[in-house]
């Protein structure tokens, strides 16, 4: 059996990749994908721990998390779409009419 630490390391790596993407990418879609990576990192954890403890709540919750992630992407894409219509670009750093 693979020790739980390995899953933790994997999920931490995925989480950091996600954060890195969030910080460096200016394309709204890639931003979204990075967020998905973060969510999936959490899912890896949930499933791994669920396996370790032998109870199912983690796995079931991971299913819920996936559903929510899909819904989040749906809303996100909608917003990116209207962003494109208003600013003619999906660069997230373009929309800066409000600040300070």
């Amino acid at each position, binding site marked *: *059996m*693979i020790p739980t630490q390995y899953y933790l390391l994997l999920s931490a790596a995925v989480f950091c990749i996600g954060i890195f993407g969030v910080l460096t990418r200016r394309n709204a879609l890639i931003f979204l994908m990075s967020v998905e990576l973060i969510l999936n990192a959490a899912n890896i954890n949930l499933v791994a721990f669920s396996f370790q403890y032998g109870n199912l709540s983690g796995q*079931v919750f991971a*299913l*819920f998390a*996936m*559903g929510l992630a*899909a*819904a989040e*992407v*749906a809303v996100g*894409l909608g917003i990116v*779409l209207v962003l494109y219509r208003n600013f003619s670009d999906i660069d997230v750093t373009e929309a800066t009419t409000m600040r300070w």
Partner: protein
Amino acid sequence: MSNPWIAIGALALVGVLIPLSMISVSALLRPSVPEQGKRATYESGEIPTGSSQQIRFNIQYYMVALLFVVFDIETVLIFPWTVIYRDAVGALGYEQVLFPMLLFLGVLVAGLAWAWRNGAVQWVKSPRATRQLSTNNE
């Protein structure tokens, strides 16, 4: 007791080798007939608009895809329920096992009905896509 990693390594090796070999074999065997339709980006049968460098799709494609993803994920939630359904009905009765799921499905249906009535699944070809299709065929 053998190391479980051996099996994993073997699986990975096979997983990489099969596609590689298929691509190389077909590259050796196929005749080369370049054509416009073949260079177009394949996107589930839908015709891409704009240049191939910056691919843009009809917005409707997103709509349907999103609806698909959301409803697809919801079905995942039904699977665990089906697994335990028979035992659970025996232990708890219908009103605690069947009705909640019916309620859940009812909400989903309401959402689907709303999306349908608001035209989210109605397919309208965008003028630009139609135009591009005709130019490609000429």
